[in-house]
């Protein structure tokens, strides 16, 4: 079964600073990869997904970007964080005929 590594678990960043969150997947190949965000007291919102290396689809316009430099690596970035970027960021992966599995998440606080 697949394992999703996501770090750091907690991050506090000042407004205007850059962001880089990394996610790596083990135990599968050619997965679809996803970044979701969960704001306090709210459901998960899909931000980006990728069906292959270098292929990124954005679901909502925002201050963030994503990249997939390797098959099992997915990166979420920002050049300048906003207060509204605070939230719980989850990386997720699915493979052929498998359901969606989530990583343990990164709690980002922008102050």
């Amino acid at each position, binding site marked *: 079964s697949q394992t999703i590594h996501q770090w750091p678990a907690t991050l506090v960043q000042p407004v205007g600073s850059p962001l880089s969150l990394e996610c790596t997947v083990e135990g599968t190949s050619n997965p679809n990869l996803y970044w979701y965000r969960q704001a306090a007291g709210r459901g998960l919102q899909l931000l980006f997904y990728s069906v292959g290396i270098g292929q990124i689809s954005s679901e909502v316009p925002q201050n963030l970007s994503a990249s997939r430099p390797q098959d099992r690596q997915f990166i979420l970035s920002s050049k300048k964080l906003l207060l509204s970027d605070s939230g719980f960021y989850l990386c997720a992966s699915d493979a052929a005929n498998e359901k*969606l599995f989530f990583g343990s998440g990164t709690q980002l606080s922008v102050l």
Partner: protein
Amino acid sequence: QKEVEQDPGPLSVPEGAIVSLNCTYSNSAFQYFMWYRQYSRKGPELLMYTYSSGNKEDGRFTAQVDKSSKYISLFIRDSQPSDSATYLCAMSAEAGGTSYGKLTFGQGTILTVHP
């Protein structure tokens, strides 16, 4: 109007109670329906997955889908304190490779089962 509506609760029940969690949706294109359980500050884990209208049972959990009413439910029998978590409904309108991953989630219902 949100595509998926879920009562956020919180819901508090005694141990052994039957719990009913519900979601309504407006997008008739949704064809895959899931329930996830999320413990505090953890990633959600898949509990139930259904495709068609009807019931699906797995141990103490039963998922029910009524596409004609755009309404889904999750029932938990003999609830335990370990069931205390946030329960999220999720739906997908996708066909093909991203059908499991491009999900629209409800807000989540916070459930507490007390001994």
